[in-house]
């Protein structure tokens, strides 16, 4: 383990009656980086965060924070802050008392408390709200109070459990930027749980994609997007997701071929590698998404710039350029070496050679 790893998990397992939870997860989070734990609901990502926080204890494996083995220490002794999905603000306390709660119970000096409070309030734009109760705040303000409570604690590690899921779409974007700016400014190590791949991709230095309690792939957003290790990762990351085409239809039997929507090109009917019927047209302003029905493909979407003159029901030819095809074993779903940008390797900054990963079955 390198010194720079602020949090490291090895072989951590926590299951309930042999089901759910996480199994044999190893993970490294370098200091001062932003790591997202991404996955569909029920994949164990929240359990993983709770295991790091100490709200849950592992049945096997070790958790180290700042080089210290904290596997058997309670949450309060681990020196971390946490932002909950529900914000978990104390309803009977004012904004000020909520933010200062931790400093008060830990009996820090009044002068230090005031200084840190003033700093956190200024940083999060909560001036003038100190006397209000959480019930009198908007969702975005509550979110910021929860962040201020984490900031004021002064801990170097901050865990966030889907902190944006209770905000509306517009606010989510601006708070997302705020969180990232805050993390950079304070040099925090952040572990951030989300099911929203856009959030994970836009925020993170490292994305840990989970599936059924195990790490499917860990790496930089670029690595996940360009070199997915499995068909599951390829389909989970990206919006709209990667199209999966039975290789036989493209003259490559035995493999599943994945192509990103932006790499598919339209061709006149009859030309191109595939031909399918347009089943849906989504006009998004800068681009138009055409959903194509084809018996050998799943999630076939073409992204074309601007507005296009196609209507549902038309037949469209598609070109899947060989240099943009990612190949996955049709049975195991594992990426195969080949024409991908660099052969499906996993070389993100946070990925570790000992990373546990299951050769998941083809979805």
């Amino acid at each position, binding site marked *: 383990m390198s010194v720079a790893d602020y949090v490291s998990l090895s072989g951590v397992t926590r299951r309930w009656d042999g089901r759910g939870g996480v199994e044999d997860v190893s993970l490294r989070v370098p200091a001062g980086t932003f790591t997202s734990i991404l996955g569909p609901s029920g994949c164990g990502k929240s359990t993983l965060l709770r295991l790091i926080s100490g*709200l849950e204890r592992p049945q096997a494996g070790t958790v180290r924070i700042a080089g210290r083995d904290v596997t058997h220490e309670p*949450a309060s002794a681990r020196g971390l802050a*946490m932002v909950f999905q529900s914000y*978990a603000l104390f*309803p*009977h306390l004012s904004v000020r008392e909520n933010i200062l*709660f*931790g400093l008060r*119970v830990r009996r820090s000096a009044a002068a230090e408390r005031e200084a840190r409070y003033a700093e956190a309030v200024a940083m999060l734009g909560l001036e003038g709200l100190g006397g209000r109760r959480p019930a009198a705040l908007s969702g975005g303000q509550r979110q910021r109070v929860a962040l201020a409570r984490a900031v004021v*604690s002064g801990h170097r590690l901050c865990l966030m459990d889907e902190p944006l899921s209770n905000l509306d779409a517009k606010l989510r974007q601006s708070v997302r930027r705020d969180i990232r700016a805050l993390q950079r400014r304070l040099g925090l190590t952040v572990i951030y749980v989300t099911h929203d791949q856009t959030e994970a991709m836009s925020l993170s230095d490292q994305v840990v994609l989970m599936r059924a309690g195990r790490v499917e792939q860990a790496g930089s957003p670029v690595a996940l997007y360009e070199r997915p290790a499995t068909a599951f990762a390829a389909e989970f990351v990206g919006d709209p997701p990667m199209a999966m085409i039975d290789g036989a239809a493209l003259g490559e039997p035995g493999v599943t071929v994945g192509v990103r929507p932006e790499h598919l090109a339209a061709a006149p009917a009859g030309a191109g590698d595939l031909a399918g019927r347009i089943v849906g047209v989504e006009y998004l302003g800068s681009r138009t998404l055409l959903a194509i029905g084809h018996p050998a493909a799943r999630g076939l979407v073409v992204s074309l710039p601007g507005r296009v003159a196609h209507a549902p029901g038309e037949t469209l030819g598609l070109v899947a350029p060989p240099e943009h095809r990612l190949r996955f074993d049709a049975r195991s779903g594992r990426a195969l070496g080949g024409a991908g940008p660099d052969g499906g390797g996993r070389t993100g900054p946070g990925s570790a050679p000992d990373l546990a990963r299951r050769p998941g079955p083809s979805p």
Partner: protein
Amino acid sequence: MSDPAEMMRRRRAVHGWLLLSPALILLATFAFAPSAMTVWTSLFSRGTRRRPSEFVGLETYQRLFDDPAFWTVAWNNLLYAAVTIPVSMALALTMALWANARMPARGFLRTAYFTPTMLPMIAAANLWLFFYTPGFGVLDQLVTGLGFASVNWLGQPETALWAICAVTIWKEAGFFMIFYLAALQTIPPDLEEAASIEGASRLAYTRRVVLPLLAPTTLFIAVNATINSVKLIDHLFILTKGGPSDASKLMLYYIWENAFAFFDAPAAAAATVLVLAALGGLAAFQFRVADRRIHY
């Protein structure tokens, strides 16, 4: 009549009264009218065949205040309230915090705590009569078994009221616990987790988060306990009948005696009016203080 706004206003008024009427009728029949009649009765003298009742103003009240038994009973009731209310509430809170913790046999514990509440007061009193009886009572056997002298808990003025208090506390704590337990379960578990991440001990969490969040429940229970400290006298009939020498007599028992043993309706009515006034004032005070200090 043809003005539509006026029609609308009338219809709304009619609807309002219709919605109000069930509660109004019930309260008027069973609460307001009897209260008013009690006040009325207390202002008249006791009627006999020879001397029909006549208006005497506040004379009955004067008679009450001159009666030393009234003051003994009032003092008893005050002591009884001062002991049973805080003790049963503290016990209820402790039991609720315990029964709310994650532990095995939690369901059994809750049931056990609640059992005294399900027992009718008369049955509970008989049970305790068995505990208290000198000679073969459980308590006495315990005391004499340890080498102490036998105590007639219910039969001597020094202990009778405390023996009555014990029964009330035993009966009420389980009932109040249910309210606390219900309130505890509305506190999101997130809060405890957030507090523990912030470094708060269990004690700090309880003191800074749980107790303030239970405040509305505490107020509700306090009001109920206050009312019960006047209302709950069933066990007196079984255990002491207010004796010995009024040592364990409570206000409602005194009123009952006046009304149905001595057939002195005006005295009973006057005492009732005083109790009502005291309770009303107390409830108003509790809610007023609470409104300023409690977060709902």
